[in-house]
């Protein structure tokens, strides 16, 4: 195990264009996923256990993130976004496809070979209450990565931990406190500090702010952005909140029942959503501004209503998986699966009848 020298904030990856417009397609992606699949077997029987079907949690998705950028993954519960995050961090074994991180195919790396890479890929979890060991002090929690990876920072683990605590806006003197002494937002900062300990390149954040109060959410979102600028981090942010995703992401992928249905640069996706599901999702978000009709009366905002719930991923609808709830669905949607194709520059959609499609 080599020693890692730590000198202040890590240098941003060389050659990374400033994370400005989404057009940073020139550089090699830090993370590239191709055809990623994860099927969970559904079994019956106690004595003669046999597989009766599969939950197709993730069913062949392609994604890539350039260094220093943020990819947002949005979708409703059961769309496979969390499973995708767990596959990227190799907390779960993919059924098919491959994951290339920084030029290395990590899809089926053995545990021993994976371990050194773990310091480069870290994860922030949703619930700051259950993701911290209540019997460990903050120092032990944030210092754990150093011990597990046998990294000896110059000046010792304690000093390194205190530097990180300061970096995420916590008081370094609280090194010996326990998680229960902190509020939810502060706990989330502890979780973030832990992921930063080994200066990772990629951070997968699974619903990093959804368990927090509104006023605290903004603090944590700003912290994540500051850390990205300072440390040159690359994020995959998984969230169901479309407004948070718009705020934080450069690229956004919308998932529905294990598939990516639309993928685009943030501004393109929010300004001209093309997949009907994306359109419906965006129109369903309540707007914090009372709506008025012409006569000054309050009225309900016009919106696209999707009927019903998301179907079970155990038996997803054939062909286009959205056709059961789509108002534009026609015969072809029930028989033929639409491929994910590029309709505008950098804007990919899987739909037979896209909205806002540029006139060909």
């Amino acid at each position, binding site marked *: 195990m080599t020693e890692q020298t730590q000198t202040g904030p890590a240098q941003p990856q060389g050659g990374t264009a400033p994370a400005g417009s989404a057009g940073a397609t020139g550089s090699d992606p830090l993370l590239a996923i191709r055809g990623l699949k994860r099927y969970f077997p559904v079994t019956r029987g106690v004595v003669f256990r046999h597989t009766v079907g599969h939950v197709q949690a993730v069913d062949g998705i392609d994604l890539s993130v350039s260094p220093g950028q943020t990819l947002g993954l949005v979708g409703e519960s059961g769309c496979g976004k969390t499973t995708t995050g767990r596959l990227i961090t190799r907390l779960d074994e993919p059924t098919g496809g491959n994951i290339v991180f920084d030029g290395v195919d990590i899809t089926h790396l053995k545990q021993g070979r994976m371990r050194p890479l773990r310091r480069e890929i870290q994860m922030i979890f949703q619930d700051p209450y259950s993701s911290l060991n209540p019997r460990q002090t903050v120092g032990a929690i944030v210092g754990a990565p150093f011990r597990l990876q046998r990294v000896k920072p110059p000046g010792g683990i304690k000093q390194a931990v205190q530097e990180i605590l300061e970096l995420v806006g916590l008081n370094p003197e609280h090194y010996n406190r326990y998680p229960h002494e902190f509020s939810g937002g502060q706990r989330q900062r502890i979780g973030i500090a832990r992921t930063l300990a080994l200066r990772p390149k990629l951070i997968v954040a699974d619903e990093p702010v959804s368990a927090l109060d509104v006023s605290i959410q903004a603090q944590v979102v700003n912290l994540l952005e500051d850390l990205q600028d300072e440390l040159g981090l690359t994020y995959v942010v998984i969230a169901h909140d479309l407004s948070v995703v718009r705020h934080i992401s450069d690229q956004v992928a919308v998932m529905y029942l294990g598939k990516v249905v639309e993928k685009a640069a943030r*501004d393109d996706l929010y300004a001209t959503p093309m997949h009907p599901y994306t359109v419906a999702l965006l129109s369903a978000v309540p707007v914090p501004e009372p709506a008025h009709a012409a006569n000054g009366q309050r009225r309900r905002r016009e919106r696209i209503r999707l009927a019903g719930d998301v179907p079970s991923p155990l038996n997803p609808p054939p062909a286009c998986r959205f056709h059961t709830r789509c108002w534009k669905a026609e015969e072809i949607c029930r028989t033929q699966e639409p491929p994910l194709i590029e309709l505008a520059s950098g804007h990919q959609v899987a739909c037979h009848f896209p909205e806002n499609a540029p006139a060909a």
Partner: protein
Amino acid sequence: MPAGAMLEVRDLRIHFQTDDGLVKSVDGVSFTLERGRTLGIVGESGSGKSVTSLGIMGLNTGKNVRISGEILLDGEELVGAPAARIRELRGNKMAMIFQDPLSSLHPYFTVGDQIIEAYRLHNNVTKQVARKHAIEMLNRVGIPQAAVRVDDYPHQFSGGMRQRAMIAMALSCDPELLIADEPTTALDVTVQAQILDLISSLQEEFGSAVIIITHDLGVVAELSDDILVMYAGRVAEYGTADDIFSRPGHPYTWGLLGSMPRLDRERIERLIPIPGTPPSLIRVPSGCPFHPRCAYTELTGGRCDTEVPLLREVASLGHKAACHLTAEDRTRLWSELSEGVLPEEAHTPDEQDFAPGTGEQTSSSGADA
């Protein structure tokens, strides 16, 4: 329409005696709700919004609870009313929808049985009649094949359907007051839209008064006529939806509006968070409970940390805020904020960043640096 408000709450205080001290969950809350109107109660966790609603429903019954003030339901005093009378009213004249439909429905009984039980408790009818009514209610709230699904258990329903079943149960006795406590927080956004539509169309149909409790300003803007912003068990601001969203008068409301990313506006580069964390209700900060997190305390000559601000009318009639700022300052600051001028750093000393565990968290944390 009968005269008088459907619900009138005056100076409601709900305090809990605990081993750590007295928790002032609700500390002097007043509001009025007319028939057919919707009141939104907004606040962060621990602001007392849920305790207020449980208090109205008479569900704070522990030995350590102290309730004072007045709750007038259609003119009838509920504070101190006999438990039997509250039980008669609860589920009948006033009903409640809870946040998590899976844990609020009994897993052992079918959905139908649970609606039938509630209906028969308040109406002297046979099981068959009640069952018919249950099916009709499930139909009304949009459960497909209600006649079949009435015999399903809660686990056989999806999240959205469970919430619909909860609504069916709450409305089965045609209540005049409906309290919805975070009715859509556990739901996906497309299902949330369906449930919000359902609540507002049912309200039109039944003409009930509705209280909707949420932390989501978007949900409140969709549904409410009036809005009550709560902070640390007190009312920070109270007004119509227009007042709150177009000319908010309290720095906390400004903070809430500024800290949420919005889809209906241009993307801003940086969110403006409210520094620090909500205070502990055992050691509520002196003076204005919001002052440790407020950026404008110098403008009031030190009154903020010594003097509790009263809920006073600002600008338009009925629009009230509990803040020491003068009307001019308030108008100027809000117009600056809406033009994108950032507030000054909160005045808390930098070094004592956090005081976790002490409850009184006066922090200006790194995120806003």
